[in-house]
């Protein structure tokens, strides 16, 4: 992005009531074009959001962070450069580069790092923080030739790395990946000496643009994909199962090693909660045998469903999506055949279809990098680790309730379901925030909340946050429903209500309302309802309990609800903190 384009983006008109993101760019240099590029990149990523990026004083990075007014800031972006640790590590200051000065420079940098760490931790208690470590070269102040790393330089780098590794464990602090920055902005083309000396802005424009772009991605990262559907022959393994036989397929031999890497990568994704399924034109019995091989690098239990037949792959994909109950746009399909990719893409344009490069090792590297970007998540939650088990449990539940000749009442009773309700507000409830922002089907109105709005909502003393976790004999689903609303006398208003599709058909939605009616002795619950393209499940539910056309102010009386509520057999435990 050129500076002129960034200025144009910033000046694009927006609705006056557009939500506002208030960012603070903390840096010790003149923020100038980095501020412009960062504002533009954030606008670009959230076109309907107003973005204001403010900055602090020149030459006082730590002080700028220490002085932040938390209430006026939604995100903190910190761009650290070496001179922020000690002015003598820059070129604007003439404090001395004598040999005798070097130990003092290192010591003072270490003290400044400690001060920065404390200040950043303090802010991160309330506001998400995004940090780039020094991107510019150290000046030639060390006595060694450039090719040799000075012990002082190594110590400085160690301090910075230790600082980052320590802070990165904090749930609200994220660091820009230096490797990614190096790939996009050559280190030798970053420092602008004249600009640094003339205006205190040390970056060449292309570097400022790239740095701002990556920081904006860090702040407004894209929603991660949820599932990957893979082919088998010449993809998960080398060889054609039907021709080479179970012992003829490979992934260890020199030529087949990229398939081993791919298996290892899929196992990594699965362990992070990504759903992995198989769509293959093959003999099901042979595939079953192939998956018995003990040297596979991905556990067969990590693959679900395994859909094997001789029909079109789009049929497999359709069945897999139904089993997973997720939308096509959350899925990646991988196959070595361009024809199969085209067939699936024609049926599901929203699916990202990627070619497995069976004969191009370099392309495999690019594929793995691409997949890491598509599936990467800032935080792995407990729910990620049980997602596949809960989908298997849902399938078992569906199978049992359909096939056993048992009524749903009896089936649910036998499931020994337990529901845990937490009623109270926790800023750090990452799962609740995630559910609000990714659930589509059982979603009261499709409204999303950015971190600013989330914090504002929770800080409002008149609102509540209700979370619901579920477990039955088929397995735990973790936290699967969130309700946000307010209580007033004998009525409640629900502004947000989402429930994971994994939790359907267990009468958890009825339990939520039943508990609210009973616990707070309510006479009426009203809903801030809006239809969306995808929220039919909640439309059906509300229609059923109101028995009236739905409008934006759906109201359900206690009596009406109790008349229509089916038997609820969950064991319910509640933890209530009304003031929390």
């Amino acid at each position, binding site marked *: 992005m050129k*500076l002129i384009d960034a200025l144009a983006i910033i*000046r694009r008109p927006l609705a006056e009531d557009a939500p506002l993101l208030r960012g603070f760019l903390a840096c010790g240099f003149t923020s100038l*074009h980095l501020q412009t590029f960062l504002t533009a990149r954030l606008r670009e990523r959230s076109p309907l959001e107003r973005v204001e990026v403010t900055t602090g004083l020149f030459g006082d990075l730590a002080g700028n962070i220490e002085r932040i007014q938390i209430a006026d800031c939604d995100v903190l972006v910190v761009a650290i450069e070496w001179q922020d640790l000690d002015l003598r590590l820059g070129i604007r200051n003439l404090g001395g580069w004598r040999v005798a000065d070097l130990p003092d420079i290192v010591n003072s940098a270490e003290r400044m790092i400690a001060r920065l760490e404390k200040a950043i931790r303090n802010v991160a208690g309330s506001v998400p923080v995004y940090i780039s470590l020094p991107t510019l070269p150290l000046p030639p102040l060390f006595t060694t030739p450039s090719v040799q790393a000075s012990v002082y330089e190594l110590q400085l780098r160690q301090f910075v790395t230790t600082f980052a590794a320590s802070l990165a464990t904090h749930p609200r602090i994220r660091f820009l990946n230096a490797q990614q920055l190096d790939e996009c902005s050559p280190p030798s083309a970053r420092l602008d000496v004249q*600009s640094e000396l*003339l205006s205190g802005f040390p970056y060449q424009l292309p570097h400022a643009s790239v740095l701002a772009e990556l920081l904006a991605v860090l702040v407004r990262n894209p929603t991660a994909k949820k599932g990957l559907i893979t082919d088998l022959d010449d993809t998960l393994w080398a060889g054609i199962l039907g021709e080479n036989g179970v012992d003829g397929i490979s992934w260890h031999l020199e030529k087949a090693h990229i398939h081993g890497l791919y298996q290892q990568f899929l196992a990594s994704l699965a362990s992070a909660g990504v759903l992995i399924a198989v769509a293959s034109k093959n003999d099901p019995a042979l595939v079953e045998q192939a998956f018995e091989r003990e040297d596979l690098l991905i556990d067969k239990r990590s693959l679900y469903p395994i859909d094997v037949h001789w029909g079109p792959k789009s049929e497999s994909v359709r069945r897999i999506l139904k089993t997973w109950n997720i939308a096509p746009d959350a899925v990646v399909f991988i196959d070595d055949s361009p024809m199969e990719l085209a067939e699936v893409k024609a049926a599901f344009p929203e699916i990202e279809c990627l070619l497995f490069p069976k004969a191009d090792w370099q392309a495999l590297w690019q594929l793995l990098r691409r997949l890491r970007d598509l599936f990467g998540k800032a935080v792995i939650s407990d729910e990620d680790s049980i997602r596949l088990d809960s989908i298997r449990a849902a399938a078992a539940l569906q199978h049992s309730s359909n096939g056993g000749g048992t009524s749903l009442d009896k089936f649910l009773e036998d499931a020994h379901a337990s529901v845990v309700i937490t009623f109270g507000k926790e800023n750090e409830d990452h799962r609740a925030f995630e559910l609000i922002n990714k659930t589509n089907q059982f979603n009261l109105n499709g409204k999303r909340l950015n971190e600013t709005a989330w914090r504002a909502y929770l800080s409002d003393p008149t609102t509540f946050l209700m979370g619901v976790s579920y477990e039955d004999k088929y397995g735990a689903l973790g936290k699967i429903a969130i309700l946000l609303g307010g209580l007033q006398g004998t009525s409640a208003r629900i502004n947000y209500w989402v429930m994971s599709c994994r939790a359907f058909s267990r009468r958890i939605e009825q339990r939520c309302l039943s508990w609210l009616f009973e616990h707070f002795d309510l006479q009426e619950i009203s809903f801030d309802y809006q239809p969306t393209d995808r929220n039919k499940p909640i439309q059906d539910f509300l229609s059923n309990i109101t028995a009236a056309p739905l409008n934006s102010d759906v109201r359900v009386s206690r009596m009406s609800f109790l008349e229509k509520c089916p038997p609820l057999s969950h064991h319910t435990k509640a933890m209530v903190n009304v003031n929390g």
Partner: protein
Amino acid sequence: MDNLDNRLVRCFSSVFPDLNEDQIRNASVDSVSAWHSLASVTLIALLQEEFGLQVNLADLPNLVSFSAVQNYVRHHHVAS
């Protein structure tokens, strides 16, 4: 008006969005209150980006009006 002129007006317009084209052509440090040091630095960066110029520090005090910048760009752009 030639292409170089158009590009130069576009650069000025990015820094001074409230000025129309006539006002830009007559703009100077004295007549435009928004033409402060920060605007100068941004303008120089835009010239650098748009025309591939490396503005010499010694020339900065002379770049105080649209016509001065125009002459500077014409001279250095043609020479480059």
